[in-house]
């Protein structure tokens, strides 16, 4: 097992290098360098040519070595990240990228993972219900809802829920994770309650699609497994039907769900980005969009690199979990 994990970690290194290259390519892709927009900004303010502005530009050029060949720039960029955790500067926010991202990224990941848990808690029982009562009205109902859930883009669902909140419940503050009076306030019980009042919206928005997917897969898997011989063995032993289904059915039907986590997580993270933008959450989504539209590429590249790294780690954890759950998997 330990060997397996070490081998997997080693396997991750080349992937990480490629990921960082792609992220750097995205940073470099827009025409001109990152100071072009800064220069344009200064020109608008009529400061172009003023001594302090030119000195600032020169300093920045020097700092990032923008006149060096591209691979030198890449190596310098990645080395700063590895050695100092320095992802560069954001121009729109005039802050360290890392400083800007760390809290928002943490919140994004928390949201993603809570949604994952929520998805499973909702979807697995429904999948079991649908499989054990195949072709019942409930089964058809959930299947239909699942189709709708898979067909609705995240941003649209967010809009619909906001619309319902405003027009049906006449809610005053919509979107966000906290009511205005709690933003910046110290953590208290009331603030936690307020957070819970808000956070169900993004979780619902991000989770609906993948809940539908998990229900579908759980239902299919469980139906396959319930037709297998060892289920009859369990029944022939005299076990209760519920125990047979849980121990010999669900327990095995869960494994493919775990192995699918690698596909699930990117979708949830994508959803978290879009939902964050639509609902105006203090997550990484909104600043990622701002970064892209204002060509603040170091910020955008850092987000790509970090989220891909997160997915890679998530994949590894999912594989370890699967190896632990399914004795048939060999660590080779």
């Amino acid at each position: 097992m330990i060997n397996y994990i070490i081998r997997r970690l080693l396997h991750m290194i080349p992937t990480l290098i490629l990921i960082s290259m792609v992220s750097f390519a995205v940073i470099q892709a827009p025409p001109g360098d990152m100071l072009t927009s800064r220069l344009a900004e200064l020109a608008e303010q009529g400061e172009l040519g003023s001594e302090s502005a030119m000195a600032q530009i020169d300093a920045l050029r020097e700092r990032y070595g923008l006149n060096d060949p591209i691979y030198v720039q890449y190596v310098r960029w990645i080395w700063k990240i590895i050695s100092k955790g320095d992802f560069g500067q954001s121009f729109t926010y005039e802050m360290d990228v890392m400083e800007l991202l760390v809290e928002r990224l943490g919140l994004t990941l928390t949201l993603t993972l809570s949604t994952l848990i929520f998805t499973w808690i909702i979807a697995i029982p429904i999948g079991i219900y649908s499989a054990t009562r195949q072709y019942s009205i409930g089964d058809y109902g959930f299947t239909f809802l699942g189709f709708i859930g898979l067909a609705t883009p995240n941003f649209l669902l967010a809009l619909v829920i906001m619309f319902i909140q405003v027009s049906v419940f006449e809610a005053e503050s919509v979107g966000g994770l906290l009511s205005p009076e709690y933003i910046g306030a110290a953590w208290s019980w009331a603030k936690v309650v307020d957070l819970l009042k808000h956070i169900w919206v993004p979780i619902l928005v991000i989770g609906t699609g993948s809940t539908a997917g998990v229900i579908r897969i759980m239902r299919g898997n469980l139906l396959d497994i319930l037709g297998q011989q060892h289920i009859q063995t369990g029944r022939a032993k005299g076990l209760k039907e519920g125990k047979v289904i849980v121990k010999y059915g669900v327990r095995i039907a869960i494994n493919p769900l775990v192995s699918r986590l690698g596909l699930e997580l990117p979708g949830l993270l994508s959803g978290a980005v879009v939902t964050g933008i639509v609902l105006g959450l203090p997550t990484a989504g909104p600043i990622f969009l701002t970064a892209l539209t204002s060509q603040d590429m170091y910020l955008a590249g850092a987000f790509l690199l970090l989220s891909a790294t997160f997915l890679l780690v998530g994949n590894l954890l999912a594989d370890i979990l699967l190896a632990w759950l399914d004795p048939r998997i060999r660590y080779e």
Partner: protein
Amino acid sequence: MSSAVQTPPDASVEETTTTATYSQRELIWRRFKKHRAGVAGGCVVLFLYVCVFLGEFLAPHDPAHRYYNYVHLPAQRVHIFSEDGIHWPFVYGIKKAFDRQTGIKTYTEDAAVRYPVYPFARGAEYTFYGLFRTDIHLLGTGKGNPMFLLGTDRFGRDMLSRIIVGGRVSLTIGLLAVFISLTLGSALGVISGYYGGHVDNLIQRVIELIFAFPSIPILMALSAILPPEWPSHLVFMGIVTVLALVGWGGLAREIRGKTLSIREADFVLAARVAGAKDRRVIFRHLLPSMFSHIIVIATLAIPGFILGESTLSFLGLGIKPPMTSWGLLLSDAMNIHSLSLYPWLLLPGVCIIIAVLAFNFLGDGLRDAADPYSSR
């Protein structure tokens, strides 16, 4: 002994001889026809494409024309009855009221004015796919007269016309993106599965790299790279390319899997043993036998592209005006204030859901018909 044998009447003989004379394609078609959801999905897909193909002819108004007198007008109803009995279908004129204190405009029906709705009515002039100029529309109340069946947007543009024209972009992008990524995906998938070894390894690594990024953020990043000075139609092609570039990996993986399973099938082995060249094996045996699967994979991939485009456009990173698409139309609804006052701005979203559902049902039906033994 044989004299004692009495052949009992056997009715089943005749029936068994009539089966087993259908070609593969006929069999798939027969199975598909039995799949009610699949057929319904197929019909809806067909209907949507006919609608967006007819485009300007179906649209009652010029989608770009701004009726400044009718900004944010709610949907008008078509009436048949009035106080004085049954009429040819008509819409009422519009009375506008402005509350100076709240600053809210309200529209009411003006019972004094009636505009009959005529088929093949004259309206705004348009060029039908560059072929001919005309001003005939399927339904209308005459040029400049109001008939806003789904309301108007913040510039007083007709929602119905915009949805039809926007649908053309949304649905075409889905098709083009799936075409490109399918070409790329089947080529690389077949090569990967057929040759194996280093080539396979390399291609799988590239796909792994694409999957390493969350899809929406990488789509956003790539479309943000498109030069801002590009005109609308170039951006359109750019978005198609970006979608295909990120989307081919999944298709290639599925096609690789199918190739691997078919590669060892007897008829392929027989062809290889008989000395057929790789190219011949791939083009004469592998691809034809996977054709139905490729169609299924493509159909099921289209919804993803439609959703991807709508998300990008909604976020302002996709299609740019004067073109429009369902996602771009929805970006007007992003403001919670206008959303609550003008809920009809959400209608393009209904179109997205219908289109995606229809493609999913169609794809499921085709898959069950092409491969009745795999439930997923």
